[in-house]
């Protein structure tokens, strides 16, 4: 059974409708990419999952119906959402950001272990613990956001445009780490990306959104091979 299942999700920002019935599913342990042009509804889909947008339709995670739950509750169920703009707690230090990541947890041994692991992935963190998060570079903030999400020990990681505004070399590094996290820590990943080519390299499956609906879906291999799909939806 799929770990995450969306059925017919309709969402709007006041009078402006964003999703017109999105259905998708993600299996546990997989990496799935959510692609599409600007305004297609990718970010809104992630918000629908994490409970931060008004919606109708069904969202089921690990058998729990989270369609009407508050974001705080959904986070406690094991879904970590790294939002658009990274949601960095800028006026807090790197260390405090990571502490906030572990907010919902009580197992201090586990938290310590996760912190060590996070420092393995992002070697610069220990030296910069006391630095204000707002003074980090874009790439570092993105890494911090992912590290913070990992401190939640989530079962599902939602990433919104991790590549935005970052140099290609940094993006590759971030995706490498995401793949490692997925394999080693068995974290399911749903990543929203405008940069389709790099997303398809990392993900096994993908959904392409257009105007608030799922237009195409399939394995990355299929999508990468299909010229028509690549040209019309993925832009390359």
């Amino acid at each position, binding site marked *: 059974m799929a770990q995450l299942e969306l059925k017919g999700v309709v969402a709007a920002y006041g009078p402006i409708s964003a999703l017109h019935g999105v259905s998708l599913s993600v299996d546990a342990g997989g990496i799935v990419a959510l692609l599409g042009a600007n305004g297609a509804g990718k970010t809104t889909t992630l918000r629908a999952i*994490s409970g*931060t947008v008004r919606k109708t339709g069904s969202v089921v995670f690990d058998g729990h119906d989270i369609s009407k739950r*508050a*974001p*705080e509750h959904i*986070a*406690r169920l094991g879904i*970590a*959402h790294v*939002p658009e703009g990274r*949601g*960095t*707690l*800028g*006026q*807090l230090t790197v260390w*405090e950001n990571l*502490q*906030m*990541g572990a*907010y*919902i947890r009580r197992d201090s041994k586990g938290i310590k272990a996760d912190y060590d692991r996070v420092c393995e992935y992002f070697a610069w963190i220990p030296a910069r613990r006391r630095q204000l998060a707002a003074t980090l570079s874009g790439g570092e903030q993105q890494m911090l956001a992912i590290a*913070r999400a990992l401190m*939640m020990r989530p079962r599902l990681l939602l990433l919104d445009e991790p590549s935005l505004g970052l140099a290609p070399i940094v993006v590759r590094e971030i995706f490498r780490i995401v793949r490692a996290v997925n394999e080693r820590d068995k974290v399911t990943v749903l990543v929203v990306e405008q940069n389709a080519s790099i997303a398809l390299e990392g993900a096994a499956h993908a959904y392409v959104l257009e105007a608030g609906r799922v237009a195409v879906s399939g394995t990355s291999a299929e999508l990468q091979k299909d010229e028509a799909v690549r040209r019309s939806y993925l832009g390359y």
Partner: protein
Amino acid sequence: MLAVIQQILSGIASGGIYASLALALVLVYRAMDVANFAQGEMATFSTFISYSLIEYAHLDFWTAFVITIVVSFALGIGIERLLIRPFEGAPVLTLVIVTLGLFTIINGVTGLVWGYVFKEYRGAFISQPVRFGGLYLDTQDLGVLSVVLVMLLLLYLFFSRTKIGLAMRAASLYPDSSRLLGVRVGWMLALGWGLAAAVGAVSGMMVAPIIFLDPNMMQSILLFAFAAAVLGGIESPLGSVVGGVAIGIVMALVGTYIPGGQDLRLAFGLIVIVVVLLLRPAGLFGRAAVRRV
């Protein structure tokens, strides 16, 4: 010269009182960007509770002190959940008026329950002048100042060293991101109100021995507390204490050295507020806030 220093000393003492109420104002403001105009009335109400505990339940001061703080904390949380939460996301003016409405309600209830006759309040410290050099200091004032400094220290430790303190800071600055991390932002707000109410209660219990206890006790203090909070930086607890002392000194000097100064103290408070807001809106210790457009 000695007279000036004496005035400054007594100004520091009264400054401690402004600082303590300012501390409460800052706590609410940090939590939700709103100044609680009813903070003084809440403090007065708490002080009356302690009065009843001392006069009618015959408890000693410090026991009553602790009980009052706990009760005030709970009341602060209750007020936030019942009266402020329904107005989540409402514009500033609405919240201002809600706190003004709260002001009249609490003021009315206090008057209803305890009446308007001025009461004497035996506080924590006995008033005894201490002499050194040619200067007088009162043990009561020293006591008030130490209590304020202890509160400041405790709050500092709370916000910088505890998990909940950190979560409160995160929740007030970044409510949406905090929700995604599992923080119950609404309850953080309630906690902020609870803390503010507790601090306000301490403030009231420190003030009451000095001026008589009556339902309107805190009203002029509220203005100076606002001035102190603005001067120190409306988001900075340390700033509110420094601001409070500064305001105390200024008001003492104005009251003594400017003819008719007593009447004009409130007006001077206004001038301080306006000048600070114009020249340096963040106050002495505040963060220059960046508004996301």
